[in-house]
């Protein structure tokens, strides 16, 4: 079935470097995408979202890029800090869905090396 997934389960980066976390989705009807950060023992925390009529959106130290042609989503984190260590999930919503429920991928564990 159609699903949202991530390319890498673990990503290790040096503190201060930029991080790029990738996500592939297969549901062409998806029109809304969100990145969440989940720290151990906590619920997912909203980072940034993007709608399908955009290809780029920037927040504070984060940028989300959407490539609808190849159904690819990425999260870029600038100047990665120790507090960025967490599991990152992309999630998508089908425009045809009757509810606001999101479909989550499996997650990428971002590890910051000192």
């Amino acid at each position, binding site marked *: 079935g159609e699903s949202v997934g991530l390319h890498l389960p673990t990503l290790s980066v040096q503190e201060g470097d930029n991080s790029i976390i990738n996500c592939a989705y297969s549901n062409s009807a998806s029109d809304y995408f969100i990145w969440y950060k989940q720290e151990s*023992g906590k*619920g*997912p925390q909203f980072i940034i979202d993007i709608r399908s009529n955009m290809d780029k959106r920037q927040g504070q130290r984060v940028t989300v890029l959407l490539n609808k042609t190849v159904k690819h989503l990425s999260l870029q984190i600038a100047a990665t800090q120790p507090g960025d260590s967490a599991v990152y*999930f992309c999630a998508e919503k089908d425009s045809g869905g009757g509810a*606001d429920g999101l*479909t989550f991928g*499996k997650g990428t564990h971002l590890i910051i090396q000192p």
Partner: protein
Amino acid sequence: GAGVSQSPRYKVAKRGQDVALRCDPISGHVSLFWYQQALGQGPEFLTYFQNEAQLDKSGLPSDRFFAERPEGSVSTLKIQRTQQEDSAVYLCASSQGRGSPLHFGNGTRLTVT
């Protein structure tokens, strides 16, 4: 302001027991969701409320799972006759409505022994 609050934070149940998990959404949020998160996995949708109406329960894994939101605010997820495979973190999220981001609580970790 207060975020989504869930209780209890941890619950240990013997197989066969019934459990009830509570969610207090952000005040004024009309949409409320329950998700189940197994270890090392992403959250999986269980059910959705708009105010007091349960509009989607397609994700509930069996008829042992029941959710309610009688006054359109606090919600309870009940699991009857718990099984070991029910062990997971149960997350509640709320939002202002369609197209708004979901805000999650910290979940209830259920362990069935």
